[in-house]
């Protein structure tokens, strides 16, 4: 499983950092960083929550 973020769509709302703090971080520059692009299966639930809660539908999962 691989995290794909469309950075043209991402507006740094940061809801993903709440849903999956292990995987996403917004830094002081205001941009989103993916902390682990290929997360373990155990984090799938959190990642799917991040996908659902993104207001700009910028996150997707590539299997």
């Amino acid at each position: 499983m691989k995290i794909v973020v469309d950075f043209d769509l991402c507006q740094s709302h940061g809801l993903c950092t709440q849903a999956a703090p292990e995987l996403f971080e917004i830094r002081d520059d205001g941009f989103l960083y993916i902390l682990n692009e290929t997360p373990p299966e155990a984090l799938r639930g959190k990642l799917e929550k991040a996908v659902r809660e993104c207001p700009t539908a910028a996150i997707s999962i590539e299997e």
Partner: protein
Amino acid sequence: MNPDDRVVVVGASLAGLRAVEALRRDGFAGPLTLVGAESHRPYDRPPLSKQVLTGDWDDSRVFFRQKDGYDALDLELRLGCPAVALDASARELHLADGARLAYGGLVIATGGAPRTLPGPSLSGVHVLRSLDDARAVRQALLQRPRVAIVGAGFIGLEVAAACRKLGLSVTVVETLPVPLAGVLGRRLGERVAELHREAGVDLRCGVAVAALRGESRVTGLALSDGSEVAAELVVVGIGVRPCTEWLESSGLALDNGVLCDERCAASLPDVVAAGDVARWHNPLFGETMRVEHWTHTVEQANAAVARLLRGPGVEPFAPVPYFWSDQYDVKLQFAGRVRADDDLHVVVGQLSDRKFVVLYGRAGRLTGVLGFNAPAQVMQFRRKIAERAPFPG
């Protein structure tokens, strides 16, 4: 609810779509119907007052799923067909085309309808809620009108920002002395007002619209202070009323929305509500509230479905409301629930900057956070609000 019974979701916007998605995700395998008043497939509203108005987006981008994207949900999609009544004793929903739909579980997600000004309707006067509204306003903007906006809430101010981006002359009329004071507090409402004035908006607060000028087509506004505003386009953004008329004879408890308990359950069995139409008790703030924001709707649709499928043993729905607004070069993000006179504590930058973070507190408790262009911090404080953190910290 019997697991083989039909679930009907009324309202095919964000809340309704997220509800049907949650039902399938949570394992509901029975028959499912999504009923929508508009003929459009579910679409996203936030871009309507931003990218769609400025023309940065083609409006076909607002749809959540393409036509074939509904196959996987295995549902009956009844669009262009509003619900007109609920017969709770027969567990039946009545639709505008005369059809009756039996349900075992019901999700009410009918949203809200924009309030309008009293008096006869004139062409050139618009509200902005639906895709059709946005298309009409966009068409009108292409004529490069002078624009008057009634109401300095988020919709009105986002339309103002879009118009200024297009180089149009904009006047905003607001009855309150400070815009957004109820949601951001007075001081920050003033800061937002300043943002618009700097961008060239003629923002007039503490004054009401006395009359619309024009015969069949609007030519402007007459204001309560005796002044006049010339405009070929008027956009009215004076709030939303929850769409509950169709429920008035149902016996369901209604009071500025469908009244729900802490778990989004309405007052009749196997009926839940989510989104702009739902007014529920949020135990985190000890307050019964109705919230009209995107993130809230997503969270509440999930909570309402959990309650419908799993019963009253589920966790109470106790979110920290979050919303954003894009105005000029400012991404405004807010989380919490504040009052006009909450105490303020600036933690990043200064209120006069384009980037700052300010915390709100009351009675020693953190109640809200507002950021201008500060996404790294807002979510951290949203978490702290959920943890009932002390204020000023």
